[in-house]
């Protein structure tokens, strides 16, 4: 398998860089360091949390949608300074990362995501289960999300979807 070794080793190197990117991404969200979150995105980006139903039927409506890093920052401000919601914990469990061949200067990455919510004095429950369809680019040697589409199976949301995925 030596040749495959070579291949896999190189792939693995890239894989490791991308993995590191996502590990940092999810760690930031789990730690609710929301102000840092937009920094994982390109200035000009697309972010959507969209029901699988809409995604598969070609409906554009997203439960959460943003078209720039600025809109993501506005999300954080809205969330932290204007919205009312019960305190809760979110914790994210990403599945294996699937890197696709680079196209139009971006690296497509897909993976499953399980998001677990815990409300005060309640059992932990699955708040979001879905698949992420992302596109990564490199700016100033830094990986950034150019596009992120979180397509979720769990279409009947348990009241509110508070924190980002």
């Amino acid at each position: 398998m030596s040749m495959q070794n070579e291949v896999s080793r190189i792939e693995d190197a890239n894989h490791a860089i991308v993995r590191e990117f996502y590990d940092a991404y999810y760690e930031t969200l789990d730690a609710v360091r929301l102000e840092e979150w937009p920094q994982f995105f390109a200035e000009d980006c697309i972010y959507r949390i969209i029901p699988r139903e809409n995604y598969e039927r070609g409906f554009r409506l997203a439960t959460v949608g943003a078209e720039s890093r600025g809109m993501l920052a506005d999300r954080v401000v809205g969330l932290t300074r204007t919205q009312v919601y019960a305190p809760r914990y979110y914790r994210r469990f990403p599945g294996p990362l699937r890197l696709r061949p680079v196209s139009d200067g971006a690296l497509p990455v897909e993976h499953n995501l399980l998001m677990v919510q815990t409300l005060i004095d309640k059992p932990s429950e699955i708040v979001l289960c879905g698949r992420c369809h992302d596109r990564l680019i490199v700016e100033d040697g830094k990986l950034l999300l150019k596009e992120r589409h979180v397509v979720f199976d769990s279409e009947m949301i348990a009241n509110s979807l508070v924190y980002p995925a």
Partner: protein
Amino acid sequence: MSHDSHAWPADADGRVPYWVYSDPDVYQAELEKIWYGPHWLYVGLECEIPDVGDFKTTTLGERPVIMVRSAPDEISVVENRCAHRGLKFCQERFGNRSDLLCPYHQWSYNLRGELTGVPFRRGVRRQGGMPADFDPKMHGLNRLRVEEVNGVVWATFSDETPPFREYLGERFWKHYTRVYDGRKLQVLGYNRQHIPGNWKLMQENIKDPYHASLLHVFFVTFGLFRADQKSAVDIDETGRHGILISRKGEKEANDVTSDMRNFQGDLRLEDPRIMDVVQEFPGEDTVGMITIFPSVILQQQINSLTTRQIVPKGPDGFDFHWTHWTYADDTEEMKLRRTRQANLFGPAGFVSADDGEVIEFSQQGFAASPDEAAVVTMGGREIECTDHMVTETAIRAMYRYWRKVMGYEHAE
């Protein structure tokens, strides 16, 4: 405790006892008298089923139904309950069928719900089969009365229900046709959420302009909805329907915002495109929130147009189905605008998420105190239309109607 044990408070219009939100017997009576009674229920948009055979499944009250285009110009709504042994035989949300087939014994119905096929009805090789007195005409799917009104499909279980326009009343017909004016509609997409609170709390929430200017800091801060804006509350003759009308103001601090503890004067949007609003309807009103009792809210919030369907799930929860739509002939730019503004609404909306949460807090707060009562005297005890937002009159109106339908008048 049966709901017969409950008495309505003496201050009849000024109070709402908490047992109306939690008593299982009261809930059962509501299903019978309200949901399956003489009321029009929201089923969907006709544009969701453009071709003959297209169907959509949904739930009215607690009963599963199918909305299907049974002819180019005919929409049928039938109960999703096989006439043979009761299966909810159609399980998909959407689809297209040439007829309706139940998997258990393959009884088939045409798109109007008439029984057309009963396998082995005459037996197999002269054995078995249905008895001679079996009349297929007596075994169709239960077919509801239907009206399609400017793109929206309504159905009712009752023969007493007046025609839809009459059900709305002339004033509300005006409100309704302001947005549903006959232009073709197009679906932008769906949002769905389960809200763990009594279904009536959702109706109250939208009939309640008082909260909008206080709870929704995002709204208030960006002047989309404020107590000092020109506005009005309109109620139909029966009191069951209501509309909130208001006019977008500017982002400014003044004597009124000083009364709003959460007003965030310093808030700025980094990317204000979400607030890029255009005035598309005649007049200066920017918001028109119609509550059609009992099943739906018709939202026109700046450029965001949605129907919000209520599907009750027991006394302490309901499913809330949002259909975001646009006019079919809208420009791409307008469709994009509506899609952007959708960030304000739904289970993750800057504004609507607040409402889902406070409804949950409400149920949590009063569930263990059924004999206490809510106070709904903002704006007095009168039930009347107003040209301001500092009132709970539309809530009072709904409960006066509710007592009538549910038979609690004696209590007054």
